[in-house]
């Protein structure tokens, strides 16, 4: 039982709380991470367990170019957000477009890879365990890239209509957290699928 009186500080610190959009975005990222973890666990669990069909080693080509594009897009969005913070809207638009383009190239590259896998290598989602887990995991990631591209496009259009100003720097920064998350996930997926699992 504590009974000694505490002295109350004479001056109050300024009352600041974390920004709610930032907290919300971190929560979203946490939730999405959990989804990815489950798909990753399934992928890892089933490595080497397919009863038939092509193995990763036989059909997978390491997507170096795609990866470079996606990771560079993270750099680009970082520069874009910083530019907007400093009020440099032109620079912001340039780097934002670069992010969008690099992301689109990644997605297009994934699509081309899948086309080759399905039509040349004979690997589909129903071929074997590898096929099921591969397309699900990479597909889930690609879906998140697509969602990000949608958001990037909307902001791009708004920026071109001169609606995005320095005021929105914080919002753009929060959005970039999502994009960075997508990139980090790709690093993990890439390592698991193309390095460890082959």
């Amino acid at each position, binding site marked *: 039982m*504590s009974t000694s009186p505490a002295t109350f500080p004479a001056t109050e610190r300024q009352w600041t*709380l974390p920004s*709610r959009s930032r907290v919300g975005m971190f*929560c979203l990222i946490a939730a999405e991470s959990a989804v990815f973890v*489950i798909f990753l666990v399934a992928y890892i669990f*089933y490595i080497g367990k*397919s009863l038939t069909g092509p193995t990763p080693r036989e059909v997978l080509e390491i997507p170096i170019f795609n990866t470079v594009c996606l990771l560079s897009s993270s750099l680009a969005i970082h520069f874009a957000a910083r530019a907007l913070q400093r009020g440099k809207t032109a620079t912001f638009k340039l780097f934002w477009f670069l992010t969008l383009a690099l992301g689109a190239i990644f997605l297009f590259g994934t699509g081309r890879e899948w086309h080759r896998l399905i039509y040349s290598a004979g690997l589909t989602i129903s071929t074997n365990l590898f096929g099921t887990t591969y397309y699900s995991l990479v597909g889930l990631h690609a879906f998140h890239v697509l969602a990000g591209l949608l958001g990037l496009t909307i902001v791009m259009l708004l920026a071109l209509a001169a609606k995005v100003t320095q005021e929105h720097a914080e919002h753009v920064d929060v959005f970039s957290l999502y994009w960075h998350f997508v990139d980090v996930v790709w690093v993990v997926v890439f390592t698991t699928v193309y390095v460890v699992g082959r």
Partner: protein
Amino acid sequence: MSSNSLPIPDAIDSTKPTSGEAWLLETLHEWVITVDHKKLGIMYIVAGLLFLVLGGLEAVIIRIQLLLPHEQFVSPEVFNRMFTMHGTTMIFFVVMLILFGFGVYLVPLMIGARDMAFPRLNAWGFWMSTFGGILLYFSFVGGDGLYGAGTAPDVGWWAYAPLTSRAFSPGHSTDYWTVALLVSGFGSVAIGVNLVATILSMRCPRMTLARMPLLCWLYLVMAALLLFTITPLTAAQVMLMVDRYLGGHFFDTQAGGSAVLWMHFFWIFGHPEVYVLVLPAFGFVSEIVPVFSRKPIFGYPIMVAATVGIGFISMSVWAHHIFTMGMASYSNAFFVLTTMAIAVPTGIKIFNWLGTMWGGKIRYELPMLFCVAFLFQFLIAGLTGIMLGSAPFNWQLNNSYFVVAHFHYVIVGGILFAILAAFYYWYPKVTGRFLNQTLGLWNFWLLLIGFHLTFDFMHFAGILGMVRRIYTYEPGRGWEFWNVVIGVGTLFQVLGLSFFAFNLVWSYFRGRLAGPDPWDGWTLEWATASPPPEYNFSVLPEVRSARPLWDLKHPEDPDWKYQ
């Protein structure tokens, strides 16, 4: 008991005109488009209560079918749908919705905020969750197409693979289960995000985390848990759809897939899920017991620590649901350890509630009656949980009526009683009127008797070998007597809850008027009118401790002097 010494201004009269030609449409419209956390909170709760009627009906059908051996009240197909729908409804669309409702209503008020962090997300979450429930029930007509007379899911609420594969579940009944929960799962994650952001970012000045009401702490941990709990189920359900419609092999044992993987994924969701359900109940008890014992909660810091501890440990115990699945002995042993370990912070809470009552001056108003019943019943539930946590004992008790008795003890004896306590406690705040005392006492005693008749004796059926999820049973195994007692108890419970439902409606129109602070409470929601105005607070009391109103009412003996 209301305090006249607080400077609570009357609410500005912003009553909408209720006369006029289109008042019904206007009112409906207002509720449909609302993003106000108070309205949404009420909507969540009302939706949950409606689903409670459906889930209860399913339970009654189950108990009638099982009154006698070889009873033919319903066919096995219908029975299997009944227990699947009963479990799915009660967990996802009754308890979760009601708890979301209380959280969304109370948390902004208790932290002195104007609304949730994301009001539109709040509305979206509500509509997604409710739509999921409606979709689930649509399966009764849509599951097999109208010409097939429709089928609801019948795979059990855990939907184990490979029973859920196309081979063993043709038609669409399983898909209704999967998609309905997928959709409502998005709503649940939205609530999780919203509650965390609200609690972290919207507290009024000077309300540090250490001065937050315990209910808010419990909702914070619950919301964080939601983020990591629902999503594994979402992932597994996507995998199931890939299997069923894209020819995938996640759980296809013929292609080398694993049924065990589904079990792990499901319970990685399923166990923390039960903590999602119980933590808000703890929150209600942690607010109500102190007020009616007239003492602060005993050991606020350790209650917070125990809550956070429960949140973390709960993510490590899941395989105690599958002790019989055939894991290696050391895996089983690991999960025994973590399961027993979670009993420690949970037990601490019981002791702290006891410590709160100890030396107090307990007033046995209805909220406190329900809380005391909660304490006794949750204790027993926890102890049968410990029994189930010992893997070898579990090898006998699992999948029997002992487990069914255990989890109903937690969910009905614990969580439902805490929810009812919350109703009786906060109804005056929400509506400005007390719930009727007499009706409430009928509610309490009938439900108490019914609960114990049903679920105390259910343990014995399990001990005598009665398996769960069976639509009938053999005579001569010693189960007949217990099933009859269970059935009788069900009747009492239905009566008790009927009194409650009637009380809710009757008191809205004829209940005794309550002022802003009918119970002499200490947290911020009592510092505004009942019901609160749309903007919640016109004047916020100064927050210097976890009990701002106590400090105001007892300037000679404020909390902040001792904390």
